[in-house]
């Protein structure tokens, strides 16, 4: 059985990788701003409920949005997700471009140190992603009046930050759970400019400005649970988590040429970047494992972003700052028709999820805010292992508007996640 699940995971990973190779691997042009498009992933369950799940306690999912949730670990929990994205961007002249990308999402391993009381979790997930491309065609006049020369300039961004977290969640009292984690950030944000010519007498040029960053922060969180609010078995949960601002250090290098033949234009310059805190709060209601409701808010004061390096929308030396605070509100519900009944049919034991969120982006190009509205949904299928589930999620939404220099992204995102739980360190009994 475990082998079958492993095969499923491999199939998903392979197909995602193949899709990513077939696609152009480009996403939103808005990913140019700051350190890239922010990524949110707590669990495949919360992902389908709008996104966060700060207060979303679950016996089967180990949410990453709040370390206090790790206190609920009953099994050694492992999850891995694959993500694919497709995006269509439209500007004010109704011109469109399409992009697609894919890859691995989050990896998470949770260990119950004391079952249902103290849990340890290690997680790896993307924090931000830069993957845009825009093309500019033009002509220029060569020296001494020759015929105009056509050129195409490709502006590309790639990279992003990853977050590696390790922490503990503990149940202090029957209704209070707290948690803390250490979060390491690392990654590379690169802006590339590639100019090509039809005329073979001109060489393609490729310049890149790359900032390599790393740093450490920490997250603390809590979940308060009030059981039996309406009926026996119900639970009302209120949670909150704060990730402290992180001071990242790094270096910026400008290069010319291709990956294996790059010349350094300027030597590495060291600098620092401060990413803002992340404050999350949420409420969730679980009704006898049949119904689950969740709502969350998120706040990131990107207006306090600091950097000695220039990024899209931010250049301290040039006095450019188009970043602003980010807000996100999300909510969703889940129904499992069969509840905890293990004898119910396959579809009765499957979970059906629907959610939505709206977000004010942390950037405002030319002073104009960018709003995202999206709906989410998902299915969770049981397997022969009661503690293992295969989840599929989908998210569709619209970001921005065709207003001034802004563009409208219409995006769809799919996730597939293996959630696998198993008892480890159980002493075998004889007789």
């Amino acid at each position, binding site marked *: 059985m475990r082998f079958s699940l492993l095969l*499923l995971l491999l199939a998903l990973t392979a197909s995602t990788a193949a*899709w990513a190779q077939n696609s152009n691997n480009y996403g939103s042009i808005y990913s140019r701003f700051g350190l890239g498009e922010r990524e949110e992933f707590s669990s495949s369950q919360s992902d389908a409920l709008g996104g966060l799940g700060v207060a979303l306690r679950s016996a089967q999912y180990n949410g990453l949005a709040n370390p206090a949730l790790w206190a609920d670990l009953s099994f050694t929990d492992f999850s891995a997700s694959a993500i694919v994205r*497709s995006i269509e961007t439209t500007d004010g002249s109704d011109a469109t*471009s399409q992009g697609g990308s894919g890859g691995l999402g989050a990896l998470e391993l949770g260990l119950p140190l004391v079952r249902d009381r103290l849990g340890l979790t290690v997680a790896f997930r993307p924090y931000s992603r830069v993957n*845009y491309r825009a093309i500019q065609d033009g002509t220029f006049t*060569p020296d001494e009046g020759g015929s105009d020369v056509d050129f195409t300039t490709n502006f590309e961004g790639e990279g992003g930050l990853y977050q590696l977290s390790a922490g503990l969640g503990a149940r202090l009292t029957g209704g209070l759970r707290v948690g803390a984690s250490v979060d390491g950030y690392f990654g590379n944000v690169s802006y590339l400019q590639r*100019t090509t010519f039809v005329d073979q007498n*001109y060489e393609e040029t490729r310049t890149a400005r790359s900032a390599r960053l790393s740093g450490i922060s920490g997250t603390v969180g809590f979940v308060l649970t009030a059981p039996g609010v309406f009926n026996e078995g119900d639970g009302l949960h209120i949670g909150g988590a704060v990730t402290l601002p992180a001071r990242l250090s790094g270096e910026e290098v400008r290069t010319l040429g291709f990956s294996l033949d790059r010349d350094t234009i300027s030597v590495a310059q060291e600098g620092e970047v401060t990413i803002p805190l992340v404050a999350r709060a949420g409420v969730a209601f679980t009704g006898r494992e049949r119904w689950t409701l969740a709502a969350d808010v998120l706040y990131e004061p990107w207006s306090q972003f600091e950097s000695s390096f220039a990024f899209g929308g931010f250049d301290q030396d040039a006095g450019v700052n188009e970043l602003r605070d980010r807000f996100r509100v999300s909510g969703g519900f889940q129904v499992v028709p069969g509840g905890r009944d293990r004898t119910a049919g396959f579809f009765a034991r499957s979970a059906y999820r629907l959610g939505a969120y709206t977000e004010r982006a942390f950037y405002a190009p030319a002073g104009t805010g960018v709003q995202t509205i999206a709906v989410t949904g998902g299915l969770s*299928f049981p397997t022969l292992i009661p503690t293992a589930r295969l989840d599929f999620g989908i998210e569709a939404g619209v970001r921005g508007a065709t207003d001034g220099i802004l563009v409208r992204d219409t995006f769809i995102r799919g996730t597939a996640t293996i959630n696998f739980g198993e008892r480890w360190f159980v002493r075998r009994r004889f007789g």
Partner: protein
Amino acid sequence: MPPIRSAGSAALLFSMVLLLSACQDPSGVGLELIGEEGQDPNVVVLAADTVMIGEADEITGGFADGSSPAQERVLVGAVTDLLFGDASAEAYFDVGPPATIPNGFRDRTITSATLRLSRDYVYGDSMQTLSLALYQMADDWDPTGAKADTSFEVGALLDTFEIAAADTLLELDLPASWVNANDEFLRSDTVLTAVDGFQLRLADGAMTNAVIGFAMPDSELRLTTAEDTVSYALREVFTHTERGEAPAPPPDLLFVRDGTPEVAALTFDYDNLEGLALARGLIRLTIAPDAVESSSSFARPLPQTLALFGITEDDARFGITTATLDEDTNSYTFANTSLTSILQDVLLGNPLFVRFEMEATASPVSLGVLPLVLGPAPAEGEPDPRPRAALTVIPVN
């Protein structure tokens, strides 16, 4: 339905959806959000910071059969040139058998031998008659790397000839005594070492005012027997040249005389261009043909092809590319990928060379004069006539 099979089917469906998805490359949508104005390629014309006469070995020896180093021409004659200095030239060449020889040729006696020289060059008065003397070489000689001021030892005078500079084919019959003396060697396998070749020069005391050049790949030593005729190639060639002093050139011109060690040496000041990406780099020279033209029948052919060299700090010399004369614009343009790469390295602060040098290509040897335009600086909007680099640069974001 078994749960794992259902989940597996769903995973399979998910995978198929992914693989069937199609994507289209992005376009200029959202370009204004990038905010990278002013990133268009533009051409920066950089007039040479210094232009001067440099010196480099004038190599005139080589091989006319395609071997390296190549030399396709020999010169012979003398001119009196008040503008660019008197010049004289002596030609050396050796013979080699063809790849295939008719059956029985080696067994038959050679009855006559004729040098057939194809003229392709005249410097000086093309109406002149030249008295030429043909000597046989005294010993073996090697043209490889031979400089223009080299002399090889010559042997006996074979004959003298009166030829017109305007003739395009000269047929010089070798004396019967030479034919008889070399008959067996010419038909043997040791011809390359046993026959040492010839020197052709102005006869002692002869006066003329022309230097003529022969295209050696098109020239031959024709050997005749009673039954057949075989053409031997003139493969090892060398020209000894001498050139006198010349008066200073007029202002805004620089004369670079071939047949001498003179080269044009250029440097550029790349300030304010550091760190730029380079899509194309070229070096262009404009010449003033009027400066070397004569109203009479005295011809001074312009060098048709120039070679560009990069000179390192320790004076090592590396060939970069060549440029042919554009007679419409009276200019030579050096441009290739190597030059772009070299100039890019300069902009990145890693210069390989400290200066560039230009001269007429070593082959075919000539006595042409390169009348380089040094100025004046152009008026606003006018093309720059000075030696210059044109750099198509792209600002870096």
